């Protein structure tokens, strides 16, 4: 005789509604921002028709353009630097023999993620002022590279761990030297993870606010820092428009990165 279960543990009543509410909590505010950025009215929260007026204003603002160029230059430089440093580091951590140093280096690399951002920002500021480095743009590229390293490193490290050492052994059995092994076997297999990590680093750098706020000097203001300055002056339609642009740019890059990451996972399976 089939016994009737008192309940199915995979279905908790009300839980799907609860999850839906949380998802709404995550995304409704962002949607509201996007909708308001297309509002024709100067008064932000009074709707009076669809308009791209504020986006045109933002595009015409020379200060915003300059800040955007700074942001992109810094993000590209920090991405390339952190990608190279992180890929080399991941290879050493997973394939090299570091013995006792491994734990120390792993902890060091995680440090930018653990220490509160405001404190990283302050310490970097103190450091640059102490050694007398006052080039805002260079300082920002260095500071961004530091906190981009863990983001660029983690996917590559995970991929190397998944790959295991069998392919390396096979290549060595076929008389590949270390360089050929890297160039023909390891690097092609790592490429999706490296790109995914690089895209993450790019987004993290582009979005960074606090560290940029403290480290940037006059003339090296990044876009989020500039937008923060606008926000402090009050809620305006221009702030909504520029925020929407930043939001969409992050979404595009992150989706690309997550898709790349998944493809590298799929290739594994």
């Amino acid at each position: 005789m089939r016994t009737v279960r008192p309940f199915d543990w995979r279905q908790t009543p009300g839980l799907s509604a609860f999850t839906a509410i949380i998802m709404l909590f995550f995304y409704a505010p962002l949607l509201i921002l996007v909708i308001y950025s297309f509002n024709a009215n100067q008064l932000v929260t009074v709707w009076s028709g669809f308009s791209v007026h504020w986006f045109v204003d933002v595009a015409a603002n020379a200060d915003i353009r300059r800040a955007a160029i700074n942001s992109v230059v810094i993000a590209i430089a920090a991405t390339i630097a952190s990608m190279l440093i992180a890929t080399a580091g991941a290879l050493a951590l997973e394939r090299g023999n570091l013995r006792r140093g491994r734990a120390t280096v792993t902890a060091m690399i995680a440090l930018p993620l653990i220490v509160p951002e405001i404190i990283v920002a302050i310490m970097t500021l103190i450091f640059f002022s102490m050694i007398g480095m006052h080039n805002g743009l260079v300082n920002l590229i260095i500071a961004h590279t530091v906190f981009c390293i863990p983001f660029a490193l983690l996917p590559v490290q995970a991929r190397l761990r998944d790959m295991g050492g069998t392919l390396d052994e096979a290549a060595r059995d076929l008389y590949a030297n270390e360089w050929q092994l890297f160039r023909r076997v390891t690097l092609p297999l790592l490429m999706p993870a490296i790109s995914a990590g690089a895209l993450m680093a790019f987004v993290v750098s582009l979005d960074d606010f606090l560290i940029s706020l403290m480290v940037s000097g006059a003339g090296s203001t990044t876009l989020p820092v500039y937008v923060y300055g606008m926000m402090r002056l009050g809620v305006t339609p221009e702030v909504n428009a520029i925020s929407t642009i930043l939001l969409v740019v992050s979404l595009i890059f992150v989706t690309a990165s997550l898709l790349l990451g998944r493809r590298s996972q799929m290739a594994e399976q």
Partner: protein
Amino acid sequence: MNENRTLALIAPAFLVIGVFMVLPLCIAVVYSFMTANPYGGVSMPLTFDAYVQFLFRRDFDDSLMFSWSYVIIIIRSIYLAAATTIFCLMLGLPVAWYIVCQSLQRRRILLFFVTLPFWINTLIRTYCWVLILRDEGLANNFLKSLGIITDPLPLLYNDGSILLGLVYTFLPFMILPVYSTLERIDPRLIEVAYDLYANRYAVFRRVIWPLAKPGALVGASIVFAPALGSFLAPDLLGGGKRLLIGSLVQMQFTTSRNWPFGAALSIVVTIGVLLIFLARSRKVKEEGRP
């Protein structure tokens, strides 16, 4: 890979983080023991003044008076970070469990939507709530149009709005680690609990929660630590008037120009955060033991 090549590969990461992350930490320790210059920067002699300042105020006659002002800011920061952690756990645990119970396809989609906020600018995510909560904001306009209120409610610039902003920022940080531990629970354990006449509550209390604890601990530490040092939510949603440690640190380097005190604050917070992570990794190791 031989040892020299390994060292050459790890050297750039080691040097960059060593010079631009660990060294600044050490310099901040030194700065915290120096004397503040009136226009920023530090000078000799070495003193404990910055640390004394946590608890005491120097009066005109140079005597020390006990002062609550910084203690209160620190206590409020800890209280808000703790409340954020508890709310995130209460909201995150059910969501994580819901995701675990779904099919593989749906799990992927849901996880994507939980991960996405990670990568969206915190500045913009926080600003959205200013749009909703301010006096002429969406929430007040809505309530006014319903005729429930005539004057706008002060929804912004209080501890509640800061807490809302913090929970909004850090909730994904809780859901993901809790999910990854719940996912590893053997369904047979739950089936067994059933067969032994456990009801839903008992299954949760005796089976799921004990197994979810390590994930909840990881989540709690990665929510608590950044919430403690958070700057944006208190600044934009708290109006910068209700100070938390993060804004207090930032102020010492901008308006107050007391670098040693700012450095001392940073050191104390950093040590606190590192201790939390250390305690967690030891605890997780203990619980992970069979």
